[in-house]
Structure formats: structure tokens, C-alpha cells
């Protein structure tokens, strides 16, 4: 059974509680939304990311678990990076995906460690493999690659094999 086409119109999705909450907040700027394959994605302005998470965590929706932080490199498109956050609620068992777009020349975004201590390893991994900087992270250093490694292996301009 093929999926219905993705809904990207913010007017159609503004009644969903997650979107409504973020639209109502005055520190969070919602850039775009998408509902595709039963999964809701919200793009937020990078300055409002921490507030967006705080709103979702503190509201009655109770998105109390940060399940995953990762990144997608859309090289050579611009903005190049999308940092992806998956939130989960242990009470309602629902999920939402937040995304932040970052330009290739200015790859920094607020760290979520003040909200979830568990963001620590995930953000270090994204820093290591993509070179995204997380402002306010307590210990932002390489985690997978050896110290002193050059480059960020999961970037698309990094070769899969051969010499660097």
C-alpha cells in the first residue's frame, strides 16, 4: 500500500499539538513542517532549538526522552547540514522529529546537554563525524575517531575508500 503524498503545508498541520505549541511560543521560529509516512518533522530556526525542546519537554505532551541526535549532509546544496533530533514521550509513546538547517561555513548549534545529559555522547558523535559544533557542550571532543584525526568522515566530500 503506497503512502499518501507528504503534507508540507503549515496551514494543514497547524492543528497538530506539537506544531501548535511551537507556533505559539515566541522564541521559536518554525521554518517548515512535514507529515510523511506517519512521521512528523518540524524544522526550527537554530537559535530557537533549545527553547523548542524545552517547550515540548515541559508541555502536557511530555516529550521527555531525547532518543537520537544525528546529521545529514546535503552537499553541495545549501544550507548544507541538517541536524536531526528524535524526541519520544514515555507517557504518550509518541514521536516527533526536529530539524535544524546549518550552512556549511557556520556549523554551530546550541547543545541540548542542559536539557538531557544523554545528549552528551550523541553530540560528540555528530561533532566527530560531521564537524558540527555544539555551543555549551561540556566535553566536545572526538569520540569514535582517534584524537588528532583530520576531517569528518561522514561528510559527503570525504571519500569512502582510498587515501585522504
Amino acid at each position, binding site marked *: *500500500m*503506497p503512502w499518501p503524498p507528504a503534507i508540507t503545508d503549515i496551514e494543514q498541520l497547524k492543528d497538530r499539538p506539537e506544531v501548535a505549541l511551537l507556533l505559539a511560543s515566541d522564541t521559536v521560529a518554525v521554518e517548515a513542517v512535514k507529515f510523511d509516512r506517519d512521521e512528523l518533522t518540524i524544522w526550527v530556526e537554530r537559535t530557537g532549538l533549545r527553547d523548542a525542546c524545552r517547550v515540548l519537554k515541559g508541555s502536557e505532551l511530555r516529550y521527555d526522552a531525547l532518543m537520537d541526535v*544525528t546529521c545529514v549532509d546535503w552537499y553541495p546544496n545549501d544550507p548544507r547540514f541538517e541536524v536531526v533530533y528524535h524526541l519520544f514521550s514515555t507517557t504518550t509513546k509518541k514521536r516527533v522529529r526536529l530539524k535544524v538547517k546549518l550552512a556549511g561555513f557556520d556549523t554551530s548549534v546550541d547543545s541540548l546537554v542542559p536539557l538531557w545529559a544523554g545528549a552528551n555522547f550523541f553530540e560528540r558523535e555528530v561533532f566527530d563525524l560531521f564537524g558540527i559544533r555544539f555551543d555549551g557542550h561540556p566535553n566536545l571532543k572526538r569520540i569514535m575517531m582517534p584524537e588528532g584525526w583530520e576531517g569528518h568522515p561522514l561528510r559527503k566530500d570525504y571519500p569512502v575508500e582510498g587515501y585522504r
Partner: protein
Amino acid sequence: MAEMLARPPVLDSTEDRTMLINMGPQHPSTHGVLRLMLEIDGETIVRIMPDIGYLHTGIEKTCEAKFYQQVVPMTDRIDYLCPMTNNLAYCLAVEKLLGLEIPPRAQWIRVMLNELTRINSHLVWLGSHAMDIGAMTVFLYCFREREDILRLFEAVSGQRMMTSYFRIGGLALEPPLGFFDRVKKFNDRFPADIDEYEGLLTGNPIFINRLKGVGQISAEDALALGATGPTLRASGIDVDLRRDNPYSGYENFKFNVPVLKDGDVWARYLVRVQELRESQKIVVQALEGLPEGRIKAEAPKVVLPDREKMKTEMEALIYHFKIVTEGFTVPEGEVYMPVESPRGEMGYYVVSDGTAKPYRVHMRSPSFANLQTLPKMCEGRLIADVVAAIGSIDIVLGDVDR
């Protein structure tokens, strides 16, 4: 100047109390290559700094260079104690991207094998955890039953550990003749085996005293640190994705989710042992209600045709050739597919750009997040408790490092 070099400054004795020691990377109780830097004050741990990445093989990068169907064998290597769960999570993610409907028979066999995998993984955990604590016998008993499960896997997939048995759109092959009888035979005697382990451990005062109150973590801390699976459930948070976000037909099965409040090593032990029993019940239900029918989805452009058809029908031959040489294209989009692995939430985030190769495959591995709870469990306690705590969060280093 020379005088200063000759006479090093006298350190205040209170600042000089701690010592930094390495545990690992080669240490039998770290279950792989995990290096822990322990800052200790006498026997008490002040700080733990895990150092990981020794097994980092860049699987996520490799996946981007392979066809969708070629990624399946990569997923086995991530968590080598539960290959079927990883296969399932990846296949479900791609199937969700494609919008494929999987026939019920394939779904039920997937559930059955997944629960056998959970039993397998928990047996390795139980044996090695008990051995870390000092109960040697349990290890031998657990590996005896694990051997039976590995033989079942070998019968069904030809491989004991790196099974790669699930395919996008169904299963590789129909299970061999007599396979379900063998599963039933194993399953019938397995509850007695669990009783045997519990007889050795659950009532054993040495074991209880060693584990009770050790490595405690509160529900808030466990949740904030990203713990999932038995580690989270032993702290009192009732989340099990098989029940809460059912996938692959889990909504048709009845089982309990063991939840305990204490959050110590003992609670995690009890949760996992009860999960063994629940998994056994699910296998019984899967065997009893196994539907008849196909084991592959009706999608000629994605699923390889049957061997016989491929040799006799032109159409099937063309599809076979195209899938093998060019792969199949997947519509643009992204999917995050979480499944309940023996260690917690195993999530596959797959991004497609409309070609035959995935644009990005990211694995949210449960061990990676669960490892972050270790400092919280151990700081302020004794060095010997680290061994018990590592065993109780059941990390697999392949899963941590990917």
C-alpha cells in the same frame, strides 16, 4: 630558574589524593574493547570517563556506498548478539519507505526469530554477568541452551551468528522441513532451563548480596541519560516498543512487560530473567498461530523472484537481473524505525534521495546511550562494583562503536 626546576612544588596533600587508572581496553569484564579511565580515591571511584571507538568501522559510511539490499549483511555486524533484531529494524525501515505490505507468515516468522534472538542475547548476558560476579556454572548452562538456538539459526539461515536472514520485503527462504518442530522442542524444555538458572542465582544469598543496592540509578537520571530497554524498565519506567509502538505484527501477541522500581543491578537481573520467560511465551504463540501463505511481499521490482520462476519466465528473469545489477529505487523520504532490541531501542534512520543507494543510514544503538549511565551508577562507589554495573547494562561494543 634552575632552583625552581630542581625542587618541584609541594602539592597540597588533599589535592593529591586521587589516582587515574585504566580499566581496559583489554579487560575480561568489559565485554569487548571498552576503556574506562577511573579516577579513584583509595577504593572509591571519583569519576569514570569511558573511552570508546576501538571498534569503530564506519558502517554508516559504508552503507551509503551500497545498494539497499546490500546493507542487510552490514546490520548483522553492529550488534553481533542480536543480528535478527538489526536485520528486522533495517528491513522495516526500508519497507516503510517503500510502503510495502509484508505477508503475515513472514511477519510471524520474523517475530519468532526475534524472540529467539532475544533469548540468545539474554543468555550470553546472564552467563557472562554471572561469571563476572563469580558464579561460573551458570555460564556453562547458558551456553548450552545458546548453542541450541545457534543451531536453529544455522538451520534457517546457514549461519550461526551473522544470519542476514531477513530481506527487504520478507524472508530469504522458507524455513527448512522440521524447523518448527525443532523450535517447539527447544521451547518446550526452555522454561525448565530458566528454572535451573534461577535456582542457581535468584535465591542465592551470595549473589543477592553482591547485586542488591549496587549500581543504582533513578528513573529521572536513566531517562535523561537516554537509557532504554531493561536498564530503563528496571528503574521503573514502563516502555516497551513491542507493546507501545507495535511493529511486524507484535500487536497480535500477548505478553507482560516486567517493570521494577529499584534501579539497581539486582532489578536489572530480575527484569531480564523475566523477559526470558516472556520471550518464550511469544515463541509459543508464534508457533501456534503461524499462518500459511507467502513469505515474500508481492513486489516484483523489489523482491527477488523465486528460483523456479526465474528460470522459466522471461519477466522474472529481467527483474532478477535488474535487482541484482542495478538495485531498486526507493522513493524520496526519510524514516526512523525503532524496534525493541534485547538492549533497548534500536532505531534505524534511513534517508532516501530516490536512487538505489541509501543517502544516509544512521543507527541509534541502545548500547551507545546505555553506556552513558555507567558513570552515574558507579561514582562514589567501589571499584569492584564497576564490574557488576557493566555486566548489568549489557553493552555490546560493536553496537556502541558501529
